């Protein structure tokens, strides 16, 4: 039996890695996806919405979508009443929150020229250590280009205890209550969650939501296998991968997922389907 090893209070890495006695690895955040668009177990983007005190950001772009009721009047200028939501956070302490989108356009000979809001987790990596401090935030109106510059306080990402002077005396590896309330981490996921298995392809989270299974070298030497959502798997080497299409009746439908996801979705071990489900051992009443 594993024994508990003491952990130094400052060894936050060990606390973050701790799994707990009796818990399988799939209960640990190291098995939960964070390329959230929107995510499976949670939409991790939601932890950043309130990272600057007084404002609420949209989880996936740099748009300001709210300010606190008791916020300073200067901050309230970001969401002027009746004028829509238009201010975007473009830099923090001189660090850009966006990046250019460039590449060849579908219009022959032309280049595309857009801007993408960088995901908060990476964009704010230099800012998080400044928790408790004020940082210079530059906002720009996305129509008239007007700029508002505000010094906003960075919230603590993790739960902390502070002394009278605001100095952190203790940090715990749990995400602060100031950042997310109950229900916030999962709020932007599919409703119901089964929709994700019908709508989001494998370019999101193949390790948790498999796509290409029962893969073997085919007769032409290339890989051959099944789409995980196929209802009837043809035995190798005749299997033909069915490209995802919600209207294809050979694939599991929305309603089948809603009512029977536990039977329709198969566990995959070593890349292969789990053994066929057993006939239920429940005895029918005569």
């Amino acid at each position, binding site marked *: 039996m594993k024994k508990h090893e003491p952990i*130094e*209070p400052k060894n936050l890495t060990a606390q973050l890695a701790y799994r707990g006695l009796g818990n399988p690895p799939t209960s640990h955040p190291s098995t939960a996806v964070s390329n959230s*668009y929107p995510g499976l177990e949670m939409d991790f983007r939601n932890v950043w919405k309130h990272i600057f005190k007084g404002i609420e950001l949209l989880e996936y*772009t740099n748009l300001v979508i709210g300010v606190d009721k008791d916020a300073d009047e200067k901050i309230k200028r970001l969401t002027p009443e009746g004028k*829509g939501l238009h201010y975007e956070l473009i830099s923090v302490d001189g660090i850009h929150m966006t990046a250019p989108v460039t590449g060849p356009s*579908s219009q022959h000979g032309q280049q595309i020229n857009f801007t993408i809001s960088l995901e908060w987790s990476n964009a704010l*990596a230099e800012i998080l250590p400044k928790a408790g401090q004020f940082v210079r935030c530059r906002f720009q109106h996305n129509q008239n280009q007007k700029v508002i510059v505000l010094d906003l306080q960075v919230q603590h990402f993790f739960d902390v205890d502070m002394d009278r002077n605001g100095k952190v005396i203790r940090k715990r590896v749990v995400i602060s209550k100031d950042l997310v309330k*109950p229900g916030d981490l999962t709020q932007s996921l599919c409703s119901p969650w089964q929709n994700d298995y019908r709508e989001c*392809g494998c370019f999101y989270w*193949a390790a948790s939501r498999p796509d290409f299974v029962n893969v073997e070298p085919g007769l032409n030497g290339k890989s051959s296998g099944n789409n995980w959502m196929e209802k009837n798997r043809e035995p190798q080497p005749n299997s033909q991968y069915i490209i995802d299409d919600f209207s294809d009746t050979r694939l599991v439908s929305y309603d089948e997922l809603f009512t029977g996801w536990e039977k329709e979705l198969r566990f995959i071990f070593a890349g292969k389907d789990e053994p066929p489900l057993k006939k239920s051992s429940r005895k029918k009443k005569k």
Partner: protein
Amino acid sequence: MPVKDIIEIRILPALAISRLGSSPLPMDNFDWEIPDRVGYRKIIPAETFHIDTNTGRIIDFKKPEKVQFRDSRNRIRPIAPFLELWGRFSVNDPLVPVTMHHLKKLGLRLSDVHWRVLVGNNKAFRRTKDPNDKILSDTGGFEDFKRKSLKGKCKNFLPGKSIPFGFGQFIKPNLQFPEIRFRFTPAGGFVYGPPSPPGSPIKEAVYNPKHKWKGYRDLDSDPTTTAPAQIFANDLSAQVRSLGYLDDECDGLIEVELHCKNKKLRTFARVVAGPPAFAPDGAPVRTVHDDLEQALLGHAITEKINPDDISNIIRRAMETVRLINTSVMNDKAQGMGWMDRSSYGRAAEPIMNPNVVDNLAILARHELILLSLESGSLAWFARVVRHFNQVGDLSDEGRRRMPALMRGADGGHLALTRRMVNKILQAADLFNQHKPVRTIKKIVK
């Protein structure tokens, strides 16, 4: 060790992932073994708590003969994690699990440990912005061992209706397992909604259809819709109207309060209820743990790199790619190729040369990197890894950066966390001393 005082408490793990399943029998515990460096992880049985849910008593703690993900009726067994109370008894002590023996020495009883579970599902609220669409379960404080039903209540539900979010239970310590622990058990993974015609897939009608969620639409004029938008059960019409369906996923807090004689100590952990990991012998290439680690330690690497960390990242990339039909995802009409065109009007082209993207070939390349990490192969990977600010580079070279063919949290091509990238760059330098790939500027505190 003399115990005269307790100066702080924490709950570990601080964020526990529970996974839905309708079986009343929670999932066995298991471990991973890696018998072959490029093979699959082996799932091996590990000591599993069996709890009497009526009393909170630990029946036994033993390894199952075989790890079973389903019960005898094929129902999926939920992942129901335990959360432990840890504490420190003087300023120089390390954190250790708090036991009933510690409490006794402090003159406290088990009834001085007060738990509270606060979990919610704000999916409908996130769309409608009607606060009355928030579904919340609050047990209030309790200190007994009875299993508490987590009833998700909502003002816009039909009278008397709720969604069961699962259970919370204070586990009764004993002489063999004297630690203070709590168990969160998620719900079954059912779908709820408004009253619907016969044959509809909902388990129970709970939502009052006169409120916004039934018939809700994501409007183009609303800049605050989710991304992606329209990811809810809908009527499949051009208007994409919500059917008003809800689920029993949730997230929230497990709070604990220790009533000492002269003070109250409080702390909390977080729980999330999500779907099962359907390929449980692998892990995603980028995880919540990676992001939490970056938030905790920063993006720069200030310590000596651990080669196991690098193997782990490359292994996860391999475990991801082997479940992707890379040929299909490389197609201009699928996956990121299609996203680039539909989002930005990029020229419709495959991302890689179609002749070299077959799944088995790509998998072999990943295996080769993993097998020869310390003999220079990582240098190639380090040169082609995508940096966080290159996600918008849709040139041929930019789209071929690693990880390829996947989508990130900004909707662009996936980048790893900056900390993961810096680990790879630093390790590539370390493993390839004679041909440094990149110099990492170390932060000196």
